[in-house]
């Protein structure tokens, strides 16, 4: 993808100044201390008038921010780049927001790991807030085409069609925000009403996209998390997609009024990484889809309308190596599952985990389509999927409003 890079050359230098607060989720004390020192040095070099404060987050029942030098034992951090914040855990985000508010920091960020030092990633992250009056910066990373597949298949197209803004990687737990936004978020009643959920990555991005604040995205170079620990597709689906279905419930009145989508201001250059291995086992994906249709069709019958089930049966009846879930069917399936999640047609964890074979069926077709494509071609393929999500949104709205009517 060739992302648009927004230039800020005309912005006056004099606007820089004040405090920048960075909350770092570090693996251990040594790496936290090293990272904090490096970030401080780079920030003072990049934003000369600013005073940078780097703190590390401590895990546990009562998250706090401490100076890395004072941190007695920073516990090993879970891989949180892709939003591993668990429902029920106290939110680190709230601690960061409160600290930013207390200090009156001009900008604050919650970061998870070391970054690509060959790039001006700190500049990309804070420049929009310090020099262009943005309230929120969503970090994005260059990744292999087949990494972060849940984001490609569900979260990005869904969030884009719901809120009408093309935030490429809305699943991460990292964020940079202005103190104005921090105060606005702290004032939300969700902290009281649903403290276990408030502060999760989906809640943060959903609140921002549904609100009126100025949001942008910044490409911060290569994905720093590596391949990451392998996570079972069904668990990942329940963990990542569930909160977004919850966001659909929270902002139902807002997203039903949105039509189409528009790009968000983008800083830095983004594209998928080239030279990736393409040894994806499509046969395993296809087998998973066929097995799911055979065994879970009765369960899906509580969620999907007969027309979609018929389309799935036809897809599964294709010769070996040809079975796939098409984009329009997939878009409808995602909306149908969101509706079933909302009306609790099936227990929510069961519902999300039962979506796995359908997801594998769509991924199988996607892999086949982009196998021979370069980064730009792959992004065009993702654009086509997003187009279907936007076109099928009317279907989603109809299902949402009349969930008992299977043939809107």
């Amino acid at each position, binding site marked *: 993808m060739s992302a648009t890079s927004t230039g800020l050359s005309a912005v006056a230098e004099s606007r820089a100044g004040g405090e920048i607060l960075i909350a770092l989720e570090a693996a251990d004390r040594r790496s936290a201390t090293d990272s904090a020192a490096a970030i401080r040095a780079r920030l003072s070099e990049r934003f000369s008038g600013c005073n940078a404060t780097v703190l590390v987050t401590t895990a546990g029942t009562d998250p706090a921010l401490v100076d890395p030098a004072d941190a007695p034992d920073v516990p090993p951090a879970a891989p949180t780049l892709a939003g591993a914040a668990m429902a029920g855990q106290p939110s680190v985000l709230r601690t960061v927001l409160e600290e930013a508010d207390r200090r009156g920091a001009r900008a604050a960020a919650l970061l998870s790991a070391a970054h690509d030092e060959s790039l001006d990633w700190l500049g990309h992250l804070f420049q929009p807030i310090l020099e262009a009056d943005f309230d929120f910066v969503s970090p994005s990373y260059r990744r292999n085409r087949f990494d972060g597949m849940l984001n490609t298949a569900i979260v990005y197209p869904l969030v884009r069609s719901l809120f009408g803004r093309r935030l490429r990687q809305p699943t991460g737990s990292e964020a940079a925000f202005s103190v104005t936004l921090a105060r606005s978020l702290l004032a939300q009643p969700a902290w009281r009403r649903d403290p276990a959920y408030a502060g999760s990555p989906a809640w943060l991005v959903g609140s921002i996209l549904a609100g009126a604040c100025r949001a942008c995205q910044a490409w911060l170079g290569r994905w720093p998390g590596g391949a990451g620990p392998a996570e079972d597709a069904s668990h990942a689906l329940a963990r990542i997609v569930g909160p977004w279905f919850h966001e659909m419930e929270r902002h139902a009145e807002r997203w039903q009024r949105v039509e189409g989508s528009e790009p968000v201001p983008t800083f830095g250059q983004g594209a998928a990484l080239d030279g990736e291995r393409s040894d994806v086992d499509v046969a395993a994906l296809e087998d998973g889809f066929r097995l799911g249709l055979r*065994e879970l069709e009765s*369960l899906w019958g509580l969620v999907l309308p007969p027309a979609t089930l018929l389309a799935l049966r036809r897809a599964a009846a294709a010769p070996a190596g040809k079975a796939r879930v098409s984009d329009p069917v997939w878009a409808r399936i995602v909306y149908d599952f969101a509706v079933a999640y909302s009306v*609790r047609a099936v227990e929510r964890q069961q519902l999300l985990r039962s979506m*796995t*074979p359908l997801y594998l069926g769509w*991924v199988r077709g996607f892999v086949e389509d982009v196998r021979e494509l370069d980064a730009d071609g792959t992004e065009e393929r993702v654009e086509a999927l997003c187009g279907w999500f936007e076109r099928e949104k009317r279907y989603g709205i109809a299902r949402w409003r009349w969930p008992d009517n299977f043939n809107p």
Partner: protein
Amino acid sequence: MWQNTKRVFLDSVEHILNAAAQLLPSVLAMLVIFIFTLVLAIAVRSVVRRLCNKLALDRRLREWGVAPVSSDSWASPTKLLTRISFWTVLLLGLFLGLSVLDTPVASAIDLRILEYAPRLLVAFAMFAIAVGIARVVERNVLIGAVNMGMQSARLIALGARWLVVLLGAAIALDHAGVGASVVPLAFGILFGGIVFALALAVGLGAKDLVARSLQRRFPDAGSAEAPPEQEEPRGGIHHV
């Protein structure tokens, strides 16, 4: 002759009237108990219905797959529970009412039924809960097995369901005091058989999966091939 007949007849009538007069208070007491029981049964039915509605029992049980999704509200769990509670109270009241007649046979039967009824009710509740749990377990196991790519997912889910049903049935029968030592024995045989069948189903249906799991767990156990350091995700895709 006529005088004798008249005397015998009058004696009989007097005897019957005396007996009826002696029985009348008991009959009245029985009728009062019946009416009280009927009122109590209606009240219990109303309380149970309100409680079920407040807990959204129908929706929750449908959501968990315990109750079938059906447009027939006559068969809803709330209706079932209200009917069971109504008739249970009514039947217990009936037996209680009969016991006040103070006839030896009725008293003995009533006493035994009233003693046994609570145990029977608890046993029935245990079995019903076990059946509900079994359906939840079945659906969970089915989804999990499908997501793991097990071809015999349905068989494994059914096995898991029947394990729970059998366990519940054995506990319920034991509690009700039915079958004495035969129940644990039969349960042990059936439980063992199902576990064996499940082991075969897992072993045959997902032998590759099991082999990979064992290889990861015991890397030095007889395999020349070095185990991968990290599990490769299904199909070689990183989902997160």
